[in-house]
Protein backbone atom coordinates (compact mmCIF):
# COMPACT_ATOMS: atom_id res chain seq x y z
CA UNK A 1 0.00 0.00 0.00
CA UNK A 2 1.39 3.39 -0.87
CA UNK A 3 2.62 5.11 2.23
CA UNK A 4 1.66 8.74 2.14
CA UNK A 5 4.79 10.27 3.60
CA UNK A 6 3.15 12.74 6.00
CA UNK A 7 6.23 13.05 8.09
CA UNK A 8 5.71 16.80 8.28
CA UNK A 9 4.00 16.41 11.62
CA UNK A 10 6.44 13.86 12.97
CA UNK A 11 9.80 14.95 11.44
CA UNK A 12 12.28 12.58 13.08
CA UNK A 13 9.95 9.76 14.03
CA UNK A 14 9.43 6.32 12.59
CA UNK A 15 5.65 6.48 13.01
CA UNK A 16 2.99 8.99 12.20
CA UNK A 17 -0.11 9.93 14.14
CA UNK A 18 -3.19 9.94 11.87
CA UNK A 19 -5.29 11.12 14.85
CA UNK A 20 -3.31 14.35 15.10
CA UNK A 21 -3.47 14.89 11.38
CA UNK A 22 -7.22 14.40 11.28
CA UNK A 23 -7.67 16.89 14.12
CA UNK A 24 -5.22 19.31 12.49
CA UNK A 25 -7.14 19.22 9.23
CA UNK A 26 -10.38 20.29 10.98
CA UNK A 27 -10.04 24.15 11.06
CA UNK A 28 -11.40 24.80 14.58
CA UNK A 29 -9.83 21.87 16.43
CA UNK A 30 -6.10 22.34 15.76
CA UNK A 31 -5.74 24.19 19.05
CA UNK A 32 -6.26 20.79 20.70
CA UNK A 33 -3.23 19.12 19.04
CA UNK A 34 -0.66 20.47 21.49
CA UNK A 35 -2.44 19.35 24.65
CA UNK A 36 -3.47 16.05 23.08
CA UNK A 37 0.14 15.40 22.16
CA UNK A 38 1.27 16.18 25.69
CA UNK A 39 -1.35 13.78 27.05
CA UNK A 40 -0.17 11.00 24.71
CA UNK A 41 3.45 11.72 25.65
CA UNK A 42 2.60 11.55 29.34
CA UNK A 43 0.91 8.18 28.76
CA UNK A 44 3.65 6.62 26.66
CA UNK A 45 6.64 7.80 28.69
CA UNK A 46 5.20 6.73 32.02
CA UNK A 47 4.31 3.22 30.98
CA UNK A 48 7.33 1.68 29.25
CA UNK A 49 7.00 -2.00 28.51
CA UNK A 50 10.65 -3.12 28.49
CA UNK A 51 11.65 -5.99 26.20
CA UNK A 52 14.71 -7.57 27.92
CA UNK A 53 17.12 -8.56 25.11
CA UNK A 54 19.34 -9.91 27.90
CA UNK A 55 22.24 -12.02 26.69
CA UNK A 56 24.93 -11.88 29.38
CA UNK A 57 25.92 -10.14 32.59
CA UNK A 58 23.92 -6.96 31.97
CA UNK A 59 20.86 -9.23 31.84
CA UNK A 60 21.38 -10.05 35.52
CA UNK A 61 21.47 -6.34 36.34
CA UNK A 62 18.30 -5.95 34.29
CA UNK A 63 16.69 -8.67 36.42
CA UNK A 64 17.89 -6.96 39.58
CA UNK A 65 16.21 -3.74 38.44
CA UNK A 66 12.90 -5.61 38.29
CA UNK A 67 13.15 -6.85 41.88
CA UNK A 68 12.42 -5.20 45.22
CA UNK A 69 15.36 -2.91 45.94
CA UNK A 70 15.49 -1.01 42.62
CA UNK A 71 11.85 -1.49 41.72
CA UNK A 72 11.42 -0.40 38.09
CA UNK A 73 7.63 -0.53 38.57
CA UNK A 74 7.98 2.86 40.24
CA UNK A 75 8.55 4.28 36.75
CA UNK A 76 5.58 2.35 35.41
CA UNK A 77 7.95 0.15 33.45
CA UNK A 78 7.18 -3.57 33.30
CA UNK A 79 9.57 -6.17 31.89
CA UNK A 80 7.65 -8.22 29.30
CA UNK A 81 9.25 -11.13 27.49
CA UNK A 82 7.38 -10.90 24.16
CA UNK A 83 8.28 -8.28 21.53
CA UNK A 84 4.65 -7.87 20.56
CA UNK A 85 3.70 -6.11 23.81
CA UNK A 86 6.79 -3.96 24.26
CA UNK A 87 7.91 -0.50 23.18
CA UNK A 88 11.44 -0.22 24.61
CA UNK A 89 14.02 -2.86 23.70
CA UNK A 90 16.90 -2.85 26.21
CA UNK A 91 19.80 -4.73 24.61
CA UNK A 92 21.80 -5.89 27.63
CA UNK A 93 24.95 -7.91 26.94
CA UNK A 94 27.29 -8.91 24.18
CA UNK A 95 25.68 -9.41 20.78
CA UNK A 96 27.57 -11.98 18.76
CA UNK A 97 27.50 -12.48 15.02
CA UNK A 98 25.28 -15.54 15.48
CA UNK A 99 22.85 -13.56 17.65
CA UNK A 100 22.70 -10.34 15.58
CA UNK A 101 20.13 -11.51 12.96
CA UNK A 102 17.88 -12.74 15.79
CA UNK A 103 18.07 -9.40 17.60
CA UNK A 104 17.30 -7.65 14.31
CA UNK A 105 14.30 -9.93 13.75
CA UNK A 106 13.00 -9.29 17.26
CA UNK A 107 13.45 -5.55 16.74
CA UNK A 108 11.41 -5.73 13.53
CA UNK A 109 8.68 -7.70 15.26
CA UNK A 110 8.08 -4.94 17.76
CA UNK A 111 5.18 -2.60 16.94
CA UNK A 112 5.80 1.13 16.49
CA UNK A 113 6.32 3.43 18.40
CA UNK A 114 9.48 1.67 19.64
CA UNK A 115 12.81 2.79 21.05
CA UNK A 116 16.11 1.00 21.67
CA UNK A 117 18.47 1.31 24.63
CA UNK A 118 22.04 -0.08 24.40
CA UNK A 119 22.83 -1.12 27.97
CA UNK A 120 26.40 -1.89 28.92
CA UNK A 121 29.63 -1.31 27.06
CA UNK A 122 29.33 -4.66 25.23
CA UNK A 123 26.14 -3.47 23.51
CA UNK A 124 27.55 0.02 22.90
CA UNK A 125 30.90 -0.86 21.38
CA UNK A 126 31.61 -4.56 22.03
CA UNK A 127 33.93 -3.56 24.92
CA UNK A 128 37.18 -5.56 25.02
CA UNK A 129 35.55 -8.27 22.88
CA UNK A 130 35.09 -5.90 19.94
CA UNK A 131 38.01 -7.26 17.94
CA UNK A 132 37.07 -10.91 18.37
CA UNK A 133 35.95 -12.72 15.22
CA UNK A 134 32.50 -13.54 16.56
CA UNK A 135 31.40 -10.29 18.29
CA UNK A 136 29.45 -7.44 16.70
CA UNK A 137 31.26 -4.20 17.65
CA UNK A 138 28.27 -2.36 19.06
CA UNK A 139 24.61 -2.82 18.14
CA UNK A 140 24.34 0.54 16.36
CA UNK A 141 25.94 -1.12 13.37
CA UNK A 142 22.55 -2.75 12.71
CA UNK A 143 20.01 -1.12 15.05
CA UNK A 144 18.96 2.55 15.50
CA UNK A 145 19.90 3.12 19.16
CA UNK A 146 18.23 5.95 21.10
CA UNK A 147 20.03 5.90 24.46
CA UNK A 148 23.45 4.49 25.38
CA UNK A 149 24.03 3.43 29.01
CA UNK A 150 27.76 2.98 29.63
CA UNK A 151 29.09 0.65 32.32
CA UNK A 152 30.20 -2.91 32.73
CA UNK A 153 27.62 -3.70 34.00
CA UNK A 154 25.84 -0.37 34.56
CA UNK A 155 24.33 -0.55 38.01
CA UNK A 156 20.53 -0.27 38.27
CA UNK A 157 20.67 3.45 39.06
CA UNK A 158 22.44 3.99 35.71
CA UNK A 159 19.63 2.06 34.00
CA UNK A 160 17.16 4.40 35.70
CA UNK A 161 19.15 7.31 34.34
CA UNK A 162 18.95 5.84 30.87
CA UNK A 163 15.18 5.36 31.07
CA UNK A 164 14.72 8.95 32.22
CA UNK A 165 17.01 10.17 29.45
CA UNK A 166 14.76 8.28 27.01
CA UNK A 167 11.67 9.92 28.51
CA UNK A 168 13.17 13.38 27.99
CA UNK A 169 14.15 12.45 24.46
CA UNK A 170 10.63 11.23 23.61
CA UNK A 171 9.06 14.40 24.97
CA UNK A 172 11.54 16.61 23.15
CA UNK A 173 11.19 14.71 19.90
CA UNK A 174 7.41 14.78 19.93
CA UNK A 175 7.47 18.50 20.63
CA UNK A 176 9.95 18.91 17.79
CA UNK A 177 12.49 20.65 20.01
CA UNK A 178 15.01 17.78 19.79
CA UNK A 179 18.30 18.74 18.20
CA UNK A 180 20.73 15.90 17.56
CA UNK A 181 23.90 15.67 19.62
CA UNK A 182 26.54 18.06 18.26
CA UNK A 183 29.70 16.30 17.14
CA UNK A 184 32.36 16.84 19.75
CA UNK A 185 35.34 17.82 17.55
CA UNK A 186 37.94 16.36 19.91
CA UNK A 187 36.56 12.84 19.47
CA UNK A 188 36.83 13.01 15.68
CA UNK A 189 40.60 12.71 15.71
CA UNK A 190 40.55 9.60 17.86
CA UNK A 191 40.67 7.53 14.74
CA UNK A 192 43.32 5.07 15.90
CA UNK A 193 42.54 3.19 19.11
CA UNK A 194 45.38 3.44 21.64
CA UNK A 195 46.23 -0.29 21.72
CA UNK A 196 48.26 -1.30 18.63
CA UNK A 197 46.30 -3.68 16.45
CA UNK A 198 47.75 -6.81 14.85
CA UNK A 199 47.17 -6.73 11.10
CA UNK A 200 44.94 -9.38 9.65
CA UNK A 201 46.42 -10.43 6.32
CA UNK A 202 43.48 -11.99 4.56
CA UNK A 203 40.76 -9.49 5.55
CA UNK A 204 40.11 -7.27 2.51
CA UNK A 205 40.43 -3.54 3.23
CA UNK A 206 37.02 -2.90 1.63
CA UNK A 207 35.42 -4.51 4.67
CA UNK A 208 37.21 -2.16 7.05
CA UNK A 209 36.41 0.90 4.96
CA UNK A 210 32.75 -0.08 4.77
CA UNK A 211 32.68 -0.53 8.52
CA UNK A 212 34.43 2.80 8.97
CA UNK A 213 31.89 4.49 6.68
CA UNK A 214 28.99 2.93 8.56
CA UNK A 215 30.40 3.92 11.90
CA UNK A 216 31.32 7.38 10.68
CA UNK A 217 27.75 7.93 9.56
CA UNK A 218 26.37 7.41 13.01
CA UNK A 219 26.39 10.29 15.41
CA UNK A 220 30.10 10.93 15.68
CA UNK A 221 30.18 13.76 13.17
CA UNK A 222 26.91 15.61 13.05
CA UNK A 223 23.55 14.25 12.04
CA UNK A 224 22.38 11.67 14.48
CA UNK A 225 20.35 8.95 12.84
CA UNK A 226 16.62 9.36 13.43
CA UNK A 227 14.95 6.18 14.51
CA UNK A 228 13.00 5.78 11.30
CA UNK A 229 16.13 5.92 9.10
CA UNK A 230 16.91 2.28 9.71
CA UNK A 231 20.63 1.64 9.63
CA UNK A 232 21.32 0.21 6.17
CA UNK A 233 24.16 -2.33 5.99
CA UNK A 234 26.50 -0.15 3.92
CA UNK A 235 28.46 -2.39 1.63
CA UNK A 236 29.72 -5.50 3.37
CA UNK A 237 29.69 -4.82 7.10
CA UNK A 238 31.90 -6.71 9.55
CA UNK A 239 28.91 -8.92 10.39
CA UNK A 240 30.00 -12.17 8.76
CA UNK A 241 28.02 -12.88 5.64
CA UNK A 242 25.74 -10.06 4.61
CA UNK A 243 22.74 -11.71 6.32
CA UNK A 244 21.40 -8.47 7.65
CA UNK A 245 21.52 -6.63 4.32
CA UNK A 246 19.65 -9.50 2.68
CA UNK A 247 17.04 -9.62 5.45
CA UNK A 248 16.64 -5.86 5.29
CA UNK A 249 15.88 -4.34 1.89
CA UNK A 250 17.29 -0.95 0.86
CA UNK A 251 15.00 1.47 2.71
CA UNK A 252 13.38 4.13 0.56
CA UNK A 253 14.86 6.87 2.75
CA UNK A 254 18.04 8.37 1.21
CA UNK A 255 21.02 6.45 2.65
CA UNK A 256 23.51 7.94 5.11
CA UNK A 257 25.93 10.19 3.20
CA UNK A 258 29.42 10.92 4.42
CA UNK A 259 29.63 14.72 4.81
CA UNK A 260 32.88 15.20 2.82
CA UNK A 261 33.82 12.02 0.98
CA UNK A 262 37.07 13.59 -0.19
CA UNK A 263 38.18 14.75 3.26
CA UNK A 264 37.30 11.43 4.77
CA UNK A 265 39.06 9.42 2.10
CA UNK A 266 42.50 10.37 3.27
CA UNK A 267 41.32 10.11 6.88
CA UNK A 268 40.45 6.49 6.06
CA UNK A 269 43.62 6.19 3.99
CA UNK A 270 45.53 7.70 6.91
CA UNK A 271 43.97 5.17 9.26
CA UNK A 272 44.93 2.30 6.95
CA UNK A 273 48.46 3.60 6.43
CA UNK A 274 48.98 4.18 10.13
CA UNK A 275 47.64 0.73 10.92
CA UNK A 276 50.02 -0.89 8.42
CA UNK A 277 53.12 0.89 9.63
CA UNK A 278 53.42 -0.34 13.26
Amino acid at each position, binding site marked *: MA*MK*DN*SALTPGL*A*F*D*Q*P*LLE*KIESVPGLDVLVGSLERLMNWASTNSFFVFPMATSCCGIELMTVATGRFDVDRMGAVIRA*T*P*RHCDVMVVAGTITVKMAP*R*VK*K*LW*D*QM*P*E*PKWCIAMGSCAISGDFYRDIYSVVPGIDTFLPVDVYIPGCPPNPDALYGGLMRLQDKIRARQAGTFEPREARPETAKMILPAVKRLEDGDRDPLLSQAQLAAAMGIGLNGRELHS*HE*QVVAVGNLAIGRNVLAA*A*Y*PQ*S*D*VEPVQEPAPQAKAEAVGGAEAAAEAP
Partner: protein
Amino acid sequence: MTDQWIPAVVFLILAGIISSAMLIANAILGVRAKITPPDKLDTYECGEEPDGAAWIRFHPRYYLVALVFVVFDVEAAFLLPWALNIRGFGYWALVEMGAFLAILLLGWWYAVRKGALRWQ
Protein backbone atom coordinates in the same frame (compact mmCIF):
# COMPACT_ATOMS: atom_id res chain seq x y z
CA MET B 1 -45.12 -9.75 23.69
CA THR B 2 -42.72 -8.11 21.31
CA ASP B 3 -41.90 -5.27 23.73
CA GLN B 4 -40.16 -7.77 26.01
CA TRP B 5 -37.51 -8.20 23.36
CA ILE B 6 -36.80 -4.50 22.80
CA PRO B 7 -34.03 -4.31 25.47
CA ALA B 8 -32.36 -7.40 23.95
CA VAL B 9 -32.42 -5.91 20.47
CA VAL B 10 -31.10 -2.58 21.76
CA PHE B 11 -28.38 -4.46 23.62
CA LEU B 12 -27.38 -6.32 20.42
CA ILE B 13 -27.28 -3.15 18.34
CA LEU B 14 -25.20 -1.35 20.96
CA ALA B 15 -22.74 -4.26 21.15
CA GLY B 16 -22.40 -4.26 17.36
CA ILE B 17 -21.81 -0.51 17.22
CA ILE B 18 -19.26 -0.38 20.00
CA SER B 19 -17.17 -3.31 18.75
CA SER B 20 -17.13 -2.16 15.13
CA ALA B 21 -16.42 1.43 16.23
CA MET B 22 -13.37 0.27 18.14
CA LEU B 23 -12.08 -1.72 15.19
CA ILE B 24 -12.63 1.02 12.63
CA ALA B 25 -11.22 3.80 14.85
CA ASN B 26 -8.10 1.80 15.42
CA ALA B 27 -7.62 1.14 11.71
CA ILE B 28 -8.03 4.85 10.84
CA LEU B 29 -6.57 6.72 13.79
CA GLY B 30 -4.08 4.19 15.15
CA VAL B 31 -0.36 4.95 15.22
CA ARG B 32 1.24 3.48 12.10
CA ALA B 33 4.88 2.81 11.21
CA LYS B 34 6.25 4.61 8.17
CA ILE B 35 8.30 1.64 7.01
CA THR B 36 7.06 -1.84 7.91
CA PRO B 37 10.09 -4.20 7.87
CA PRO B 38 9.69 -7.46 5.93
CA ASP B 39 9.59 -10.04 8.73
CA LYS B 40 7.37 -8.00 11.01
CA LEU B 41 4.43 -10.33 10.54
CA ASP B 42 6.43 -13.58 11.00
CA THR B 43 5.26 -15.70 13.89
CA TYR B 44 7.33 -14.85 16.95
CA GLU B 45 9.42 -17.90 17.86
CA CYS B 46 12.07 -16.53 20.21
CA GLY B 47 13.84 -14.81 17.35
CA GLU B 48 14.19 -17.94 15.22
CA GLU B 49 12.87 -18.63 11.74
CA PRO B 50 9.70 -20.68 12.45
CA ASP B 51 10.18 -23.98 10.59
CA GLY B 52 7.82 -26.90 10.27
CA ALA B 53 4.14 -26.44 9.51
CA ALA B 54 1.60 -25.62 12.21
CA TRP B 55 -1.17 -27.09 10.07
CA ILE B 56 -0.88 -30.56 11.61
CA ARG B 57 -3.38 -32.91 13.18
CA PHE B 58 -3.42 -32.08 16.88
CA HIS B 59 -4.07 -34.60 19.61
CA PRO B 60 -7.69 -35.23 20.78
CA ARG B 61 -6.44 -34.59 24.32
CA TYR B 62 -6.40 -30.87 23.59
CA TYR B 63 -10.10 -31.17 22.72
CA LEU B 64 -10.79 -32.76 26.13
CA VAL B 65 -9.07 -29.93 27.97
CA ALA B 66 -11.00 -27.38 25.91
CA LEU B 67 -14.28 -29.10 26.80
CA VAL B 68 -13.55 -29.00 30.54
CA PHE B 69 -12.60 -25.33 30.21
CA VAL B 70 -15.86 -24.46 28.43
CA VAL B 71 -17.90 -26.12 31.19
CA PHE B 72 -16.34 -24.02 33.94
CA ASP B 73 -16.29 -20.88 31.81
CA VAL B 74 -20.04 -21.12 31.33
CA GLU B 75 -20.39 -21.72 35.05
CA ALA B 76 -18.61 -18.44 35.71
CA ALA B 77 -20.88 -16.76 33.16
CA PHE B 78 -23.93 -17.92 35.16
CA LEU B 79 -22.38 -16.80 38.42
CA LEU B 80 -21.97 -13.21 37.27
CA PRO B 81 -25.63 -12.06 36.82
CA TRP B 82 -26.61 -14.01 39.94
CA ALA B 83 -23.95 -12.30 42.02
CA LEU B 84 -24.91 -8.85 40.68
CA ASN B 85 -28.44 -8.83 41.94
CA ILE B 86 -28.39 -11.35 44.74
CA ARG B 87 -29.88 -8.80 47.09
CA GLY B 88 -33.29 -9.09 45.43
CA PHE B 89 -33.38 -12.90 45.56
CA GLY B 90 -33.10 -13.57 49.33
CA TYR B 91 -31.51 -16.65 50.91
CA TRP B 92 -33.06 -19.25 48.67
CA ALA B 93 -30.94 -18.04 45.76
CA LEU B 94 -27.86 -18.81 47.84
CA VAL B 95 -28.96 -22.39 48.40
CA GLU B 96 -29.82 -22.89 44.74
CA MET B 97 -26.48 -21.49 43.57
CA GLY B 98 -24.78 -23.67 46.20
CA ALA B 99 -26.47 -26.74 44.70
CA PHE B 100 -25.47 -25.62 41.20
CA LEU B 101 -21.84 -25.22 42.27
CA ALA B 102 -21.89 -28.56 44.12
CA ILE B 103 -23.03 -30.38 40.99
CA LEU B 104 -20.27 -28.72 38.95
CA LEU B 105 -17.76 -29.57 41.66
CA LEU B 106 -18.88 -33.17 41.29
CA GLY B 107 -18.22 -32.85 37.56
CA TRP B 108 -14.74 -31.42 38.21
CA TRP B 109 -13.90 -34.23 40.62
CA TYR B 110 -15.05 -36.76 38.02
CA ALA B 111 -12.87 -35.10 35.35
CA VAL B 112 -9.81 -35.21 37.61
CA ARG B 113 -10.35 -38.83 38.59
CA LYS B 114 -10.77 -39.84 34.94
CA GLY B 115 -7.54 -37.96 34.25
CA ALA B 116 -9.06 -35.69 31.62
CA LEU B 117 -6.68 -32.91 32.60
CA ARG B 118 -3.62 -35.13 32.77
CA TRP B 119 -1.71 -35.87 29.56
CA GLN B 120 -1.64 -39.67 29.36
